[in-house]
């Protein structure tokens, strides 16, 4: 089955060129101007852009166990709508992904019914309780790409050191959610001006920074590759930059909401702004954009965290943390960063595709002959709005709901198969 995408502006070597892209089943086989070959399907991408499929290292599919929030089918479909062709799911399901059986369940369901590829991140401690090391070796047989306790943070330095030593023998990274529980206790939003004004408990940047600094020191000793999830403060970025300079195998990610929003978004007690780490200050936000542009932050991850309306529609203190992210990521970032000249389109694509592909050692993330036909076509002039009746995810918990953005994904091909078109 051959498909040609004609006349699109194609992302090639960090630039855009007007060429045709021909792929046969799941492989790209030819890229040049004006391909005159027979194909089973031809798509005209005139005035549109063609990107490598986006890759998300951080998401929550809620399957098994919390499928009223999301499941593998709805989650991957929402991802395909957002232009993602590979997503990694975090282990905080019910039961927790800390065993090979659950890994295989997700692998099989995603393969049979998914709208994009799913890679599993296994727990690093059993039930993510931070007590005993999980069966990481067994889960490796199911192809886990990393281990993480997701939203749980190991407070015990000795245990973390053992987890890091143990994991390093499998040559996969440990992903860290950095949160000192004593410092974050009772916190609802960033500890600062807005938490003072609203009388809400604060989560200080220090809760994140102190764990990152500590874990960097432990990783150095354990000779372990670490990835810091959803970095959110300027100081945290500075600590990571320093560790990179010292040669530690460390990477980090930032979410769209930490690039686009600040604590000010919480002013009306909108529970859709309640997230961990919390939305920080404008100073922090600017530091995130700068660090991403400079490569200190390696890539963007959505931290897609679907929650049902009835869970978010309640008192701020009682609502769960998390923001729904697959469908909004590209359009919100394109509209608010690229169109406002805070970031180039080339850079945005690099940090949504190429960089996370490299991190996961995938044969995708670039549009090259021989690479996987994971491709996205986008109409940057087309508008997209997010409403509860057009959101594909089972959940509506995004602060961007009701708003309109530029940059609509019109087609998503995953392994050469059309998984989304609109």
């Amino acid at each position, binding site marked *: 089955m051959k498909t040609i995408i004609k006349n699109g502006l194609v992302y090639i070597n960090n630039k855009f060129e007007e060429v045709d892209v021909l792929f046969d089943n799941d492989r790209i086989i030819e890229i040049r101007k004006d391909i005159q070959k027979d194909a089973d399907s031809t798509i005209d991408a005139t005035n549109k852009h063609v990107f490598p499929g986006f890759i998300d290292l951080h998401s929550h599919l809620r399957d098994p166990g919390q499928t009223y929030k999301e499941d593998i089918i709805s989650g991957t479909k929402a991802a395909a709508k957002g232009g993602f062709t590979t997503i990694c799911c975090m282990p905080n399901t019910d039961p927790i992904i800390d065993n090979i059986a659950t890994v295989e369940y997700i692998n099989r369901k995603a393969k049979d019914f998914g709208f994009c590829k799913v890679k599993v991140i296994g727990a690093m401690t059993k039930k993510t309780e931070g007590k005993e090391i999980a069966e990481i070796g067994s889960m490796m047989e199911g192809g886990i790409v990393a281990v993480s306790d997701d939203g749980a943070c190991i407070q015990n330095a000795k245990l973390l050191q053992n987890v890091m030593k143990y994991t390093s023998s499998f040559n996969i990274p440990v992903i860290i959610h950095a949160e000192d529980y004593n410092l974050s206790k009772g916190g609802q939003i960033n500890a*600062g*001006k807005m938490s*003072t*004004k*609203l*009388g*809400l408990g604060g989560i200080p940047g220090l809760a994140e920074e102190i764990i990152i600094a500590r874990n960097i020191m432990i990783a150095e000793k354990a000779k372990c590759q670490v990835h810091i999830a959803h970095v959110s403060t300027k100081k945290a970025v500075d600590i990571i930059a320093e560790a990179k300079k010292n040669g530690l195998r460390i990477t980090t990610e930032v979410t769209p909401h930490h690039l686009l929003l600040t604590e000010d978004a919480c002013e*009306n*007690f909108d529970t859709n702004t309640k997230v961990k780490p919390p939305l920080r200050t404008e100073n922090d936000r600017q530091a995130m954009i700068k660090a991403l542009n400079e490569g200190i932050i390696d890539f963007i991850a959505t931290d897609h965290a679907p929650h049902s309306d*009835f869970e978010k*529609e*309640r*008192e*701020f*203190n*009682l609502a769960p943390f998390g923001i729904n992210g697959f469908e909004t990521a590209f359009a919100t970032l394109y509209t608010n960063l690229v169109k406002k000249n805070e970031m180039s389109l080339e850079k945005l694509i690099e940090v949504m595709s190429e960089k996370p592909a490299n991190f996961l050692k995938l044969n995708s993330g670039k549009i090259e002959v021989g690479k996987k036909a994971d491709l996205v076509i986008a109409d940057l002039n087309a508008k997209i709005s997010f409403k509860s009746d057009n959101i594909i995810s089972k959940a509506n918990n995004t602060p961007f709901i009701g708003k309109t953005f530029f940059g609509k994904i019109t087609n998503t091909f995953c392994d050469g198969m059309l998984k989304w078109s609109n």
Partner: protein
Amino acid sequence: MKNKHNFIGRNLYDLDDYSADEIIAILEATSVMKEINERDYKKLPTLRGKTVCTLFMENSTRTRMSFELAVNRLSADLVSFQASISALSKGESLQDTICTLNAMGIDLYIIRHRFPGSPQLVHKYSEKPVMNAGDGRHAHPTQALLDIFSIWERLGTLKDLKITIVGDIAHSRVVRSNLIGMKKLGANVTVCGPKTLVPGFLPEIYGCKVEHDLETALKDADVIMGLRMQLERQNEGLLPSLDEYTKQYVLSKRTIQFAKKDALIMHPGPMNRGIEIMPEIADSQQSLVLAQVANGVAVRMALLFLFLGGK
């Protein structure tokens, strides 16, 4: 009673939504209500046929009684909802509770809740006017209005007064609402307490002064307000002991001498005598503590009258 400002259908989440003129209008209406409260026959038929629901999701005695008395004195029907004996304790969500109550035909809600932002939720679900009777540490606008009224009534204005608030600033909703309201009326407010109990962002948000030394904070003050100091703060590691707090911050004959002579003494209650305030001060001629309670009923009557369009 005529009023050029329109309060009908509005919500009272906090004082930031109200202009200085509107606050003055509320104070003037309060004076009228106060006169009624001093009559032998303390009742007006003005809100007959209106139904007010008080939702107290957190323990409260004085605020609840004050509101309920105000409702009764204006002849509105009162529905009183208490969390401990309600469906909430059976796990019903606030949303379901409000929708259920709303179906009974409530005209205005008054809510006390331990979580900030809850009054906004009540309005969202009911689409009826809501008065905040205290939401967590966030706001307590009717307390601030009765505090402001108590000063205004005695001194005629708040403009250029030095008002010093002493105690657990961080956990106080009363302080936050007072900082907004007093500033709008031109007062200069200083807050004072140990650093663990005074958020550093206050001057930036409210334009107040922060002092950690009581003597400096009280210097030349026209009004002094003490706040309740709770034993929990010791357990939370914010204070070594109440005794040490008292040594540094108690309002006593000795410490208030740094303020202006005859400075007004206030406290939102309930008081811990001997911890944040000494009895000789709380019960002195300068003390407005009981006047605050009396004014609380009048302020709440004025608010109900204005918000429900009494005639």
